[in-house]
């Protein structure tokens, strides 16, 4: 009885195998050379990010960062929402935190972080 022939991997499977091994650069090169042999969904994953400048500004988060440095360890595993150095909400789940935030208005957008 002969050794059964191994079915060659499709290009898509090869790409996924490379990804699994963490060989992202090689996966990317293979996608570039394979072109139409790959489904659009996979090509899109490796497409360069679409980047554009937007006239929208954040705020200096130094007060929030100070709070996190000082109090972060005491809030381990919690979701926190900060406005300046004020903790405006703290919950075990993001869903509950967002629900609480939705009922309130703030002078600036809260900074949300999961202390993990």
């Amino acid at each position, binding site marked *: 009885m002969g050794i059964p022939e191994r079915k060659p991997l499709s290009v898509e499977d090869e790409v996924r195998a490379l990804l699994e091994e963490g060989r992202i650069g090689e996966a990317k090169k293979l996608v570039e050379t394979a072109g139409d042999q790959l489904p659009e969904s996979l090509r899109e994953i490796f497409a360069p990010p679409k980047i554009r400048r937007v*006239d929208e*500004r954040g705020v200096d988060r130094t007060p929030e960062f100070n709070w*996190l440095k000082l109090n972060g360890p005491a809030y381990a595993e919690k979701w926190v929402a900060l406005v300046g150095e004020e903790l405006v909400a703290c919950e075990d789940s*993001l869903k509950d935190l967002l629900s609480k935030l939705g009922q309130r208005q703030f002078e600036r*957008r809260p900074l949300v972080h999961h202390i993990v």
Partner: protein
Amino acid sequence: MFALSFSAGRSKFLDRHPRFVEPTAKVYVNIAFPGLSQDWLAQVDTGAAYSILEQDVARELGLFQSEGKFTRLHTRLGALRGRLIRVPLKILADEGTSLDFEATFFVSPDWHGGTFLGYSGLLDRLRIGLDCPRNLFYFGESG
């Protein structure tokens, strides 16, 4: 003047892990997602091959309802099953202009870490620079 031409914007960054005392500094920057009216922190990690989205945030963005093949990727928490998904987001500038993005993230219900901006497909398309004494993160699109 040089910094202005190098980057589109800059923002303050958080330079340490908010929970653990770690021997190395970190770089957490402000980001925003369309559809969510808060700002969020993401860790810039040039050592991470790809970007990862925190699972609860992915859930809020409705990304677990996406279709597409699962991929297994090796993360610092072991091999995880998830999907590679294009996610829109903004890197927020305190000064200058923010950047609007659509980049590929690994999204897995088994990932219990935070959000990481990784090298491939995201940071490798940006100009970034740090002013460490002042905790300033400079960023701009490449080319």
